[in-house]
């Protein structure tokens, strides 16, 4: 059809239905991938990290669910009934050994759940103590990291976004806390807080958790947020110069909105990586303190305190030291390797 330059006449050929071959051209070959999906895919390719992830999940699930159906409890002294010692053969059993009472029960044809790891000197089933200790250690590690994350993220993003004098003051404080020898301060603070908290907690809900764990959380909140704050401040410092922040500011957004909606989501990978690596270090610190006798309150076990208690009778019952020690090492090792894998997968700068 002959077409005039300024004519409003429509070219009817443009409106012919697409042929099949043309339609095929428009079909999406595969769904578009987000950064998160990409990273997860990269993570799954890393065999070491995936294995470690499954080990962690397995240990966590076991720590949560095994105490629910296991016939013994972590504080139950099996040889005692109503405060009186009834059967001393329950004490110091080696793995898979049975006490006299249980042997008579078994002879009578009843089923007795074996003491997989034996019992300790007070006749408590050691397996459930290890499981419970794992539960405590994992919980402490997890919550301590969350505390560190929240405090570090808040302060770091404020310092980074506000800049100027606020940033200067916050960063000087961070510098000082950062150069404090952390372990010494942790030991000092937790040994004192333990005494202070004991009186203050009586009768409250928190008393159940125990003064030692709470003081541990406080110490983490006071000392360990600094590296997280530094990291996030550095990220935000560069991110706030981006155009979308300017656009948001032009649209009238306030600082809080910009930080929460724009800046923090963009620090996502840094946050995930450092939180994942914070958990093993928190578990490590907890077990270290428990080993020095500053950890969880007795009779609650943690892996560190189990190892510490076992040290006294180590020549006669080495397995009691080896088992919690192996569990701690396994947890810390797999969390570290998983964290490394996470860093490789989520850090776009390393992506080549």
């Amino acid at each position, binding site marked *: 059809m002959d077409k005039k330059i300024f004519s409003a006449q429509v070219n009817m050929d443009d409106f012919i239905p697409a042929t099949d071959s043309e339609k095929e051209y428009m079909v999406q070959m595969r769904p578009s991938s987000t950064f998160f999906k990409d990273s997860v895919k990269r993570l799954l390719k890393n065999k070491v990290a995936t294995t470690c992830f499954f080990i962690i999940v397995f240990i966590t699930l076991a720590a949560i669910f095994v105490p629910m159906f296991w016939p013994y409890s972590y504080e139950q002294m099996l040889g005692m009934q109503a405060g009186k010692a009834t059967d001393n053969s329950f004490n110091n059993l080696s793995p898979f050994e049975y006490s006299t009472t249980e042997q008579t029960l078994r002879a009578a044809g009843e089923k007795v759940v074996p003491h997989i790891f034996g019992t300790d000197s007070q006749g408590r089933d050691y397996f459930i103590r290890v499981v419970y200790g794992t539960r405590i250690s994992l919980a402490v590690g997890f919550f301590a990291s969350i505390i560190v994350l929240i405090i570090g993220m808040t302060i770091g993003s404020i310092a980074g976004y506000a800049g100027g004098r606020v940033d200067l003051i916050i960063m000087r404080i961070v510098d000082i806390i950062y*150069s*404090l020898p952390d372990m010494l301060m942790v*030991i*000092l603070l937790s040994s004192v807080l333990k005494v202070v908290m004991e009186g203050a907690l009586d009768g409250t809900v928190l008393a159940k958790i125990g003064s030692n764990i709470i003081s541990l959380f406080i110490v983490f909140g006071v000392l360990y947020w600094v590296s997280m704050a530094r990291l996030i401040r550095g990220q935000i410092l560069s991110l706030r110069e981006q155009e979308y922040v300017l656009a948001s500011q032009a649209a009238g957004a306030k600082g809080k909105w910009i930080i929460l909606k724009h800046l923090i989501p963009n620090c996502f990978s840094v946050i995930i990586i450092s939180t994942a690596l914070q958990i093993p270090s928190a578990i490590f610190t907890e077990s270290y303190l428990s080993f020095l006798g500053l950890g969880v309150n007795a009779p609650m076990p943690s892996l560190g305190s189990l190892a510490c208690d076992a*040290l006294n009778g180590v020549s006669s019952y080495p397995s009691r030291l080896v088992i919690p020690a192996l569990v701690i*090492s396994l947890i810390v090792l797999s969390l570290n390797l998983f964290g490394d894998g996470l860093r490789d997968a989520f850090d776009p700068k390393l992506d080549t």
Partner: protein
Amino acid sequence: MNTKTLMYIVKRVLLAIVTIWVVITVTFFVMHAVPGGPFTGEKAVTKQVMAAMEAKYGLDKPLGTQYLTYLKDVCLHFDFGPSLKQRGRNVNGIILDGMKTSAKLGIIAALIALIFGVVLGSFAALRRNKLVDRIIMVMTTAFVSMPSFIMGSFLLIIFAISLKIFPANGAARNGLFLPVVTLSLYPMAYITRLTRSSMLEVLGQDYIRTAKAKGVSGTKIIFGHALKNSLIPVITYFGPMLAGIVTGSLVVEQIFAVPGIGRAFVNSITGRDYPLVMGTTIILAALIVIMNLIGDIMYKVVDPRITLE
């Protein structure tokens, strides 16, 4: 050295001084926040005796005055006052006594870690992705993940209890062997990894290729060209290494019953010997801070390429 470096050094020294002051202050006030004085619960003491005791140790004065006196004693005279639990001894004496053993332990452990770490790290880098490298990397990963108290316990079980090669008591003859090994394994593993990665980086540099092209022999390239530059990151690890050895020695001395400063510290916490707790904390903290400072400054001086913020 230019002005920028000088400024940096001044800044770092100031920061170190402030840090030590913060440590002293925090330690002092934290220790005095504990409910009940150091003498409560010891024996049933009459009020007069208690008052006399408090007067003797200056505990009856206002907290601010006590703080200033303490600060003056510590900073000007290096005097940490008398021990409350070990009658007739002062904290300085106890710390000095403990330091003799602990310093020996720590220095030997640090040297072992440094020597073996650098050698193993370079070795792993040269045999990259070969079997030796793999074995070294797996071992170091395991050592890095194993807390020192667990390492110590394992060594105790294996070498002192099962095989009976070394004594379990640190005060005995050859008794320092196992504690030294325990303390050195973690920093050794860390230095190995550090040296390996920086050696790999250095080996990829142009000047190494030039040296190779000139026909310089392998050993000469390593010792004459590569090693010096690949050791720079190791310098920054000096401070953290000392901190690790100090905190490690707290438990290691406990496990092997070594009569050192770490054991004195832990015992003073459980025994509520406040002046001793403060004294050891401040001494150890100052040691770590100063070591960090030296490490940082050396890092800057050794490698002028490093730009500071």
